[in-house]
């Protein structure tokens, strides 16, 4: 039989990462194609959540709320921005962790780690793919709000969002690396992501302005990256704040990113080394 092996001296590169990312996306699409009903139900749930927000906006908008005044007074615009940014946090914080856990439980992490692809490619494509989906969801969410419910962003200054987005993402990814490292170490879905999600919903001003919170809770909320991310994005989109006005939020997010990313990388590398020591890459 004619040998068919091809000597592929491929070196780790961004191109390799992109190839795996597309292969990952194709695999997910093919898997989803087998679960059409579940896909439709998820789509319906997404639409219904926007509808629910619209009715809440009708209720709150009618009462000319003073807490919303600094954000232009439109509750739907306020809430849409809040939930979109929180979605990015959930993806950043929980996706890598969930992928590590799913790969351990389903058993494909060891098989993928046995291929020539470096660990940063094997483990990095999932979160990047999910961030892509989050961008798609955000686009749909905002489009629905604008086209169906008449939301407007008349003062939007996108430059602040563009400058702040990498910092926001970095802070979320740093938290995600910490969460994934914990998952790898304890071999359980760790509660950090769920706890952070609940705390953020309560304290960061996702669904209501933080001005409604008591002072001490507001102070606790300032320890969460999402609080500052929301200040930055809402300031840019709803208030039309300039970069200089948003500088405090940008500086704090840079601080979060500067601490969380190196800490997350260090703990994740330690957890990976530990998994290689105790043989838990494919165990659960």
């Amino acid at each position, binding site marked *: 039989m004619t040998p068919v092996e091809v000597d*592929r001296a491929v070196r780790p590169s961004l191109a390799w990462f992109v190839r795996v990312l597309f292969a990952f996306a194709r695999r997910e699409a*093919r*898997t989803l194609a087998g679960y059409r009903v579940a896909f439709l139900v998820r789509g319906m749930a997404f639409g219904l959540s926007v509808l629910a927000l619209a009715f809440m906006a009708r209720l709150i908008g009618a009462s000319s709320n003073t807490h919303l005044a600094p954000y232009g007074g439109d509750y739907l615009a306020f809430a849409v921005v809040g939930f979109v940014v929180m979605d990015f946090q959930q993806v950043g914080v929980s996706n890598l962790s969930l992928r590590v856990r799913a790969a351990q439980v389903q058993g494909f992490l060891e*098989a993928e780690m*046995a291929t020539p692809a470096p660990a940063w490619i094997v483990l990095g494509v999932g979160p990047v793919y999910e961030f892509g989906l989050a961008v798609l969801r955000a686009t749909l969410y905002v489009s629905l709000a604008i086209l169906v419910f008449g939301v407007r962003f008349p003062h939007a200054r996108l430059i602040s969002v563009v400058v702040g987005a990498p910092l926001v993402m970095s802070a979320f990814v740093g938290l995600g690396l910490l969460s994934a490292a914990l998952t790898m170490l304890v071999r359980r879905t760790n509660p950090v992501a769920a706890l952070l999600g609940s705390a953020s919903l309560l304290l960061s001003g996702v669904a209501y302005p933080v001005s409604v919170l008591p002072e001490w809770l507001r102070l606790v909320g300032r320890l969460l990256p999402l609080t500052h991310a929301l200040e930055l994005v809402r300031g840019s989109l709803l208030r039309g704040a300039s970069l200089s006005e948003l500088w405090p939020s940008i500086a704090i997010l840079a601080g979060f990113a500067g601490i969380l990313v190196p800490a997350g990388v260090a703990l994740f590398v330690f957890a990976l*080394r530990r998994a290689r020591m105790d043989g838990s890459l494919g165990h659960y």
Partner: protein
Amino acid sequence: MRDPGEPGAGPRPAGRSGAVETPHAVDVGIDPAVVDPSQDLAAIAVTALGKTFRPPAGIRELLRGRLTRAPVSALADISFRVDPGEIVCVMGPNGAGKSTLLRILSGLLSPSTGQARVAGLDVESHGWDFRRRVAFVVGDERSFHWPLSGLHNLEFFGALHGYTPREAGRRARQLLGRVGLAEVADRPFHTYSRGMRQRLALARGLLGAPDVILLDEPTLGLDPLGARDLRNFLRDEVIRGAGRTALVGTNDPGEAKSLSDRILLLDHGRLVCETVPGRLDAELGL
């Protein structure tokens, strides 16, 4: 390059050090003082390898301030070498340490002590080049995506080998044809029989261009005829036909005899004996 340790040729000295093999001898390996592993041209060179697991502590241990339970020794002081082109089986009962040894040699598990080099590279390098040259055939059914076809599964792993989509598709089809799965390439993995799954795992292991193949119980769960066919295919086409070296973990004496040039017997994590297929029954007292 290879010693004349052909089937039926009788026991041979273990390794290059010339240590004489005796049944149930504890140390049949190479002397680390004699051979510098980094200069060894063996396809696989293992020196004084050991592995101790430290299971995570339960609540009781944690309350006593201990982070781990009592260590469990899975491998101790293992030394051997495999020449290029050789097929060597690692035999032993369940829990003997075969899978642990194979996973260390594949780079998925770090050794606690000793050294191991495969295809000239340190197993601790964890590098992409190591994993390109050393294929560990992961037979675990859970490692495939069950709703996807065999072809689509291989295409995904092809991307992890660095292939472009077109290359991955072409390579996947070639390999599916080679392992006899061309007819069922588009069927979902969950409809595959046990034998088909094993063959798909083998195809996945061949996606790169490995010099050394590590297989853990490749015919586990197959019926006798299916197992025989797969063994012949492995030996004649995948390993010998392509000039590769292979280390195969098994607890089936028939498999060890029909596949290998040499057999290493493991028991309780120790290498107790090295023999050739013609003498295996005698060594096992069969």
